[in-house]
């Protein structure tokens, strides 16, 4: 049982996780964007499906 969890504020556990996740995602999105740019370069003229612009 993780009793320690009861004595910390609800956010702090998740803060550290989010720091790590944000790090991983930053790298991931960097390569994703790079890939999208490469793809866009080779498919010039073809319109990429518009990113979700609802909000």
């Amino acid at each position, binding site marked *: 049982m*993780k009793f*320690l*969890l009861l004595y*910390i*504020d*609800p*956010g*702090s*556990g*998740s*803060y*550290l*996780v*989010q*720091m*790590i*996740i*944000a790090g*991983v*995602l*930053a790298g*991931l*999105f960097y390569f994703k964007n790079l890939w999208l740019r490469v793809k866009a370069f080779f498919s010039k003229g073809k319109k990429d499906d518009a990113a979700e612009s609802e*909000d």
Partner: protein
Amino acid sequence: MIKEKTAYQHHPASFKDPSGFVFKANGKYYRQVNKSYSEDYDLLMSSGLYKELIDKKLLIPHTEVNENFNDSPDWYKTLLPEQLPFISYPYEWSFDELKDAALLTLRVLKISVKHGMILKDGTSFNIQFYEGKPVFIDTLSFEKYDDSKPWIAYRQFCECFLFPLYIEHYHKMDVQKLLSVYLEGIPASTIAKLLPARARFKLSVWLHVYLQASVNSNNKPTNKAATANFSKAKLLNLIESLQSAIKPLHVKTTIQSTWNNYYGETILSKNYLDAKEKVFRDFVSDINDGRTMDVGCNDGYFSKILAEKNNNVIAVDFDTQCVNKLYLDIKSGETKGILPFCIDLTNPSPAVGFNHAERQSFAERAKADTVTALALIHHIVLSKNVPLHDVAKMLSDLTRQHLVIEFVPITDEKSQQLIANKTNYHKPYDPEAFENNFSDFFEIEKKQIIPSTDRILYRMKKR
């Protein structure tokens, strides 16, 4: 002289957040905003966030009432939100209802960030279903966004939404009963043990479940300085990652559930359904007022007939796949007046939470002016062995005025299937016993045999 105490009822579920509370006065639900929340409330209203959320129908609209009903020294504002016809809980939602509620929460969060605010909690109890769609109801969940900090409600969001959805997605099993026990969501450490090994190979699962479980397990209060360099871009990445983790999750409807092919497979299907519809339409033609509850709604064929004239139809069934199918149907269709939920009438949602009062039982919430119970009684009496008299009592507790109920006799093909391997059901089970037992609670107004079957449709009035 003692001042007469105002009889405004503080809602028993509304105590956690010191920003304000919900109370009932003169038959309506109001929300008090406390002074401590005044800055955040003013920002919500002035930043354009409230307007955008209302325009997109994502938040329940409210009007301000300039009256301190509770004579409270903390009073800042009183809000009168648009009143909801029915309150449901996450453990009564089907897969896609929970999924849409999760995506709504993330969408609200994203819009909030755009306006310089953030959600301070991420519980699924912030969502209700209204006019066929989920809507955010907790007007006091927004606070000023500090872009150096991560999302305080991230863990709660995962536990209340993402993890239960993972369970349903990976195991194709119902998660409602589990959620009715884990009111604050299912912890990462528990989910990590429940998910199949193959889930580990998915990056999003690894990040949100396994990483979180392992960080939580050797938890120390986090060094504030270490988390001080979070940013808006990082938060938006996190939201996008959660969105793309949730969007592809699904439950296959190809699995043969209890009912999902009920009408399709029965020999009588088309003729039976047409005949029943004709009698049913005749029986309900003059009852269009108030709330109607279709218990054992199956795929909602008859709920939709009720919704033609009434936009306050609650459709419940214990088969979560039927409920899910009906929800998706309503979502993509024209009928908006039906709210479908997963309820097992022989084991309905209990009163749970703090002091047994935080979340009401189904019976406390479900009273309806008209109740319809088609092709249901044989399941309760023959499969679940509930005596006829008890079924009548239960239905009368749910009903305010009318009950439209179908009696399925023992000779019926479906009844025969149910008793194929059992003899110890409550006897007598025949129209006479049915009428006698129900007459203690109802007066039979109309009665008609459904042509080419032995089934009988009754319309009754509560005594």
